[in-house]
């Protein structure tokens, strides 16, 4: 199967800082690819390359087997790559339906009478949301009245509706409570069932394990390997996320501190 997106030996530098080095990654249709790693591991840099915020300095990006070089997020979107950012998903002060179609408004009329077809927009938004199982009260209410989980869910529904083949989710569950996160995870599975390839970034091993098919671990801009779900265990993933050996050495160190402090007291 041709990967929806593929990174081949991607590198990115910010001045002297090596943000990413030699990263290769494939996202297949109907697969949830979890991107794991500590803060500063390069997860955000990598997804920004995927979503067209900036191009890589090295390596190649392929969309459905074809090399691409995105100049803007719009170009990535046009190729079916949609990114839902944790903090940028929705604009709180404007209504759900206006948010849903922001930048892609359906129109009626012609010339100077070409206008935003709010009636159609409303019907589409309502349908798209209910299809993915989101109960909305009123599509004209401000997004600010929705909970964090609902906002993420609406953003995902929007991406799926506009034909996203690849859905990149930047820590969609990290600011959410348990129930809220469950709602978002359900939409991730829903999107996957529709054949969407999902790149899911998270710090939470429970969330990753609940929906992930493939796990790639980044550390200081380098890939620590990619593991399929059947080849690994939840504990191994947890170990990878926590930083493995570093955590082990930290434990030793902490024990040492506790011992010496105990000695002083």
């Amino acid at each position, binding site marked *: 199967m041709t990967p929806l997106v593929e990174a081949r030996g991607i590198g990115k530098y910010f001045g002297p800082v090596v943000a990413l080095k030699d990263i290769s990654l494939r996202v297949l249709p109907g697969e949830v690819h979890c991107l794991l790693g500590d803060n500063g591991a390069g997860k955000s840099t990598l997804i920004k390359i995927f979503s067209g915020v900036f191009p890589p300095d090295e390596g190649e990006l392929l969309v459905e087997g074809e090399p691409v070089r995105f100049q803007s*997020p719009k170009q990535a979107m046009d190729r079916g790559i949609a990114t839902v950012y944790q903090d940028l998903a929705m604009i*709180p002060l*404007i209504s759900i339906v*206006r948010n849903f179609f922001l*930048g892609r*408004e359906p129109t009626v009329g012609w010339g100077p009478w070409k206008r935003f077809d709010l009636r159609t927009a409303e019907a589409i938004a309502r349908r798209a949301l209910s299809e993915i199982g989101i109960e909305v*009260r009123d599509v004209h209410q401000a997004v600010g*009245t929705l909970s964090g989980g609902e906002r993420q869910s609406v953003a995902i529904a929007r991406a799926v509706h506009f034909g996203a083949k690849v859905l990149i989710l930047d820590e969609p569950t990290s600011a959410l409570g348990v129930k809220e996160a469950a709602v978002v995870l359900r939409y991730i599975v829903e999107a996957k069932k529709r054949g969407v390839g999902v790149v899911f970034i998270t710090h939470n091993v429970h969330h990753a394990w609940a929906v992930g098919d493939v796990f790639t671990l980044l550390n200081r801009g380098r890939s620590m390997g990619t593991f399929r779900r059947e080849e690994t265990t939840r504990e191994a993933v947890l170990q990878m996320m926590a930083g493995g050996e570093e955590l082990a050495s930290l434990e030793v160190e902490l024990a040492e501190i506790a011992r010496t402090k105990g000695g002083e007291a």
Partner: protein
Amino acid sequence: MNEAPPSRLRKVSPVRRLMARPEFGSLAGVILVFAFFAVVAGDRGFLTPMGTVNYLEVAAQLGLLASTVSLLMIAGEFDLSVGSMIGAAGMALAIPVAVWGWPMWAGILLAFAFAALFGYLNGYLVVRTGLPSFIVTLASLFVLRGGTLGFTRWITSRTRVSGLHAYAQGDPLSALFSGHPLGVPISIWWWVLLTLVASFVLLKTPFGNWIFGAGGDPRAAHAVGVPVARVKITLFVATAVSAALLAVIQVLDTGSADVLRGELKELEAIAAAVIGGNLLTGGYGSVIGGSLGALLLGMVKQGIFFTGINTDWFKVFLGTLLLAAVLLNDYLRKKALEATR
């Protein structure tokens, strides 16, 4: 978790819906202020057709600016240079016509072209430098006012160009910006037209949706493909052109241009927009609200005159009104965001 969740849709009464609209505060204010002056000054001419036209004309002069200033504010930016533009565009019309012998229509076109260019420059600077538009347009406020004064004095050795009525006779373009069609001053017609057009653009077009997006969260809007820079630059052009429109109407009405014309109008326009429920930080507001804000200020300005109170007190009312309106709008907006929870 598997059963269908209960419907959380709640019936909201029409009154509540109206109250949740950004322009509600200014609408209530207009009704209150009208009632107040009708009672206090009703027998002194406030309610007569002449009194009405009188305050509507004052409101129109501000409302012309308030509609575009509202749009720009919803897009998250200010234009403090519109007041200076009134003086500058007036001179851009008057000097070529009175000194260089251009036909009136060419002077009018120059005034608009100059405003559009300057507005573009404002917008371009804001978008490219990423500096707050408050600072950029504060700079252009001074530059434009000073430039107008310097240039006018250099060319004419005066600060005022008058006697323009004679040149307007029979000019094809000046008819559009002067006179009293159906007995109503042209500025009021333009005010209504501009309010309707701007409101239509904001609420009924994709561009209007982009205005909300650009002001609500420019990065989020950009991420979904909204051309935020283009939206903002276009609106800076619109505010400058609306200032030029006001300048042309004033010059044709009074027959003169003055370098000092329009001073502090930028702040009055912002006051009207804020009274109209437009959020200073962008992303929320209404053109109708901004126009109602202008109507409110116009009513107060002329209403005070009718009551016989010294009009020196106008600015006290303006300030108090502004503060009260902001507090009310803030309260209403919070209510609106809670209303459906």
